[in-house]
């Protein structure tokens, strides 16, 4: 990394400079950054993957990668950051996608207007021919007034040329409209005056000036200019025959798209839900339980008494060196890595955006837009992982709704395995009723949240990436980088959680909680008092708790109530930790309490409904209960939607 970077300095004679990479989302900035520095950044065929700024330092010179933006102002906090970074740059490298110049040149023209020395990197030039396009490079350089370097970043082509031409970077040609307007701020530099003219409140405040009102004019002019340049330099030679385009259309057309989606979901379930969550994790967890933990205990036994306080904290039931390590390495690591692998493939292929489009309508009922379908689907594999991916969603409101729905209504694959086993022995009717309840919960709670949380669902405005075949090295590298940073963050939280549980156990609080829960279990849920233990276990791991229900003798209706309550009940420790980490302590705790409350209220109501149905119509208990649930759901949905249209 250092070598290549140093070479840039030598070859260009720049000395101590700051170079900033800027471009639209999904144009290959990060791959390009990697080619230039040898340092890896998260790359995918899905907009918005660079969440943090990446710098590579060489001597006093920095190369900075920035998140993809469509323009520079203060629309989002990311944009503000990119704008401030650009202003302080000595050279800006503007990466554009050769096939999507029309979109990318808005930013290019804005950078030119700002008057910062720049060079344009025309990425993916190899796609031009395949997509039936022809580009006049000479004319483009003339029009923009800056060097334009064609590259294929994924293959490393053109990188040397860029390094040779880097010293030719210069301010681009500002538009005539902007030039005229800039005269209003004679004392300011162009890169400061322009944001003020465009009404950027942050930059204006820094100079104690009122934000200007020329945004609409300048933007319209800039779009015109970008369009003009594109139509002058780009010729469409042949029709766009790329197979990927037709495939992309089939995937969003419901007739072909829905079967394709079902197929992908099934593959996903088989690979992550079955192969990974059950077989691989079973193996790694067994390895940790049978080999690692006894080894640690025998080592510790040499040094301290395992029954002592320190011994229990370190290697007891919730030991820092036993349970915490086993969870992180035996359970979380394989699950997280597997999920990121599948996720990376979905992202890199460009399929994720198509699922979002296909499901947009359905998700809008829940106050979410199509993009939220990804965490929801992932939830049936592992709720913990799904909670992390709620980061993909654009607004806080959507993240909140998705987190609550995941925590409340989605059972993870490990739990589903036990649920299916138990329900299978009870009969098909119970299985169907369970499915209905999960569905009703998601729909009902989603609709109610959508109605009562301020704001509305954000409509979809999505820039569709082309379908591409995922690159294996990219997928592997990305999954590993993400997994590593996740584990690094989760590890201390796990240690803390394990420590807390040990304390509860040692002080006898655990038993008290179990006894404290008895009125709840016996008199409210009509369940035997042993189920309290299952709920406590369910908090540690959902499937442990569910497994325990099998051992408690109950009648079918009781078993069913226990299963449903446990499904709704607070997610496992890992999920709870993630909720606290992602949503903050205050909101995390609120979500946790709300979910527990809803679980027990729901469980109690279900219990009463079922026993009432049994006493009224013993022969058709389940269908009758199902009918009532559907009726309640319809009423809730109708009221929520009706009040929405009135309000």
């Amino acid at each position: 990394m250092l070598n290549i970077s140093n070479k840039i300095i030598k070859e260009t004679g720049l000395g101590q400079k700051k170079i900033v990479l800027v471009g639209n989302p999904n144009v290959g900035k990060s791959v390009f950054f990697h080619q230039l520095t040898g340092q890896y950044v998260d790359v995918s065929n899905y907009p918005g993957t660079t969440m943090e700024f990446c710098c590579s330092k060489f001597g006093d010179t920095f190369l900075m990668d920035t998140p993809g933006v469509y323009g520079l102002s203060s629309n989002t906090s990311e944009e503000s950051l990119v704008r401030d970074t650009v202003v302080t740059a000595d050279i800006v490298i503007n990466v554009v996608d050769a096939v999507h110049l029309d979109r990318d040149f808005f930013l290019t023209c804005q950078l030119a207007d700002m008057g910062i020395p720049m060079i344009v990197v025309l990425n993916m030039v190899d796609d031009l021919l395949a997509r039936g396009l022809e580009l006049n490079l000479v004319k483009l350089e003339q029009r923009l007034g800056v060097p334009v370097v064609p590259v294929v970043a994924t293959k490393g082509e053109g990188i040397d040329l860029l390094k040779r031409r880097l010293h030719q970077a210069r301010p681009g040609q500002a538009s005539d409209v902007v030039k005229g307007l800039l005269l209003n701020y004679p004392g300011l530099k162009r890169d400061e005056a322009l944001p003020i003219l465009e009404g950027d409140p942050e930059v204006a405040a820094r100079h104690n000036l009122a934000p200007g009102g020329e945004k609409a004019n300048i933007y319209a002019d800039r779009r015109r200019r970008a369009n003009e340049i594109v139509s002058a330099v780009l010729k469409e030679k042949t029709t766009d025959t790329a197979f990927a385009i037709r495939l992309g259309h089939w995937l969003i057309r419901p007739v072909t798209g829905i079967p394709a989606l079902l197929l992908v979901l099934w593959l996903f379930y088989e690979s992550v839900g079955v192969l990974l969550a059950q077989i691989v994790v079973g193996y790694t967890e067994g390895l940790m339980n049978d080999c690692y933990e006894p080894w640690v205990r025998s080592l510790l036994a040499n040094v301290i008494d395992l029954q002592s306080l320190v011994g229990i904290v370190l290697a007891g039931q919730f030991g820092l060196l036993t349970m915490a390590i086993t969870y992180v390495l035996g359970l979380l690591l394989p699950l997280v890595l597997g999920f990121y692998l599948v996720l990376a493939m979905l992202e890199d292929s460009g399929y994720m955006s198509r699922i979002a489009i296909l499901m947009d309508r359905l998700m809008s009922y829940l106050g979410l837009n199509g993009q939220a379908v990804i965490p929801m689907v992932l939830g049936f594999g592992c709720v913990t992982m799904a909670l992390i991916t709620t980061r993909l969603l654009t607004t806080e409101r959507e993240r909140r709704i998705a987190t609550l729905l995941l925590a409340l209504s989605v059972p993870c694959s490990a739990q589903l395995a036990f649920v299916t086993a138990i329900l299978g022995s009870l009969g098909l009717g119970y299985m169907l009723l369970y499915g209905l309840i999960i569905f009703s919960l998601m729909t009902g709670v989603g609709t109610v949240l959508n109605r009562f949380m301020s704001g509305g669902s954000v409509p979809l405005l999505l820039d569709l990436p082309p379908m591409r075949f995922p690159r294996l090295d990219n997928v592997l590298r990305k999954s590993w980088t993400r997994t590593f940073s996740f584990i690094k963050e989760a590890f201390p939280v796990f240690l803390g959680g394990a420590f807390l549980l040990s304390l509860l156990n040692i002080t006898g609080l655990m038993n008290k909680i179990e006894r404290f829960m008895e009125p709840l279990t016996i008199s409210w849920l009509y369940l035997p008092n042993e189920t309290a233990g299952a709920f406590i276990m369910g908090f540690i791991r959902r499937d442990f708790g569910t497994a325990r229900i099998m051992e408690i003798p109950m009648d079918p209706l009781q078993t069913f109530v226990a299963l449903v309550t446990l499904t709704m009940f607070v997610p496992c420790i890992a999920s709870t930790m993630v909720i606290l980490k992602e949503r903050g302590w205050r909101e995390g705790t609120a979500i946790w309490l709300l979910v527990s409350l809803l679980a027990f209220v729901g469980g109690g109501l279900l219990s009463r409904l079922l026993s009432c149905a049994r006493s009224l119509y013993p022969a058709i208990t389940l269908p009758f209960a199902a009918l009532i649930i559907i009726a309640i759901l319809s009423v809730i949905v109708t009221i929520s939607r009706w009040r929405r249209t009135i309000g």
Partner: protein
Amino acid sequence: MMLDKVKRGDLIKIVSIGEATVRENALRMGIDEGSILICAEVIPAGPIVLRKYRQEIAIGRSLARNIAVVMLARAGEARLACSNLTGEMC
């Protein structure tokens, strides 16, 4: 007419985009008032996918209801008009 009434293959011109922030975001992506686009795909009751050059942009249904367009050519007749414009089959 509004954008949500458009059919696949139609050649349209954007007349006005309702909300200011949406207008700005769409403009940055390449769609502004006066843009001539092809409707690449309509998902029943779902988003509308518009194409300009080789770029495709999906617009949620609720957004599409607030975007006014004029029809330049219906699907089918659009072939000639847009082949001049973009050299593409529609």
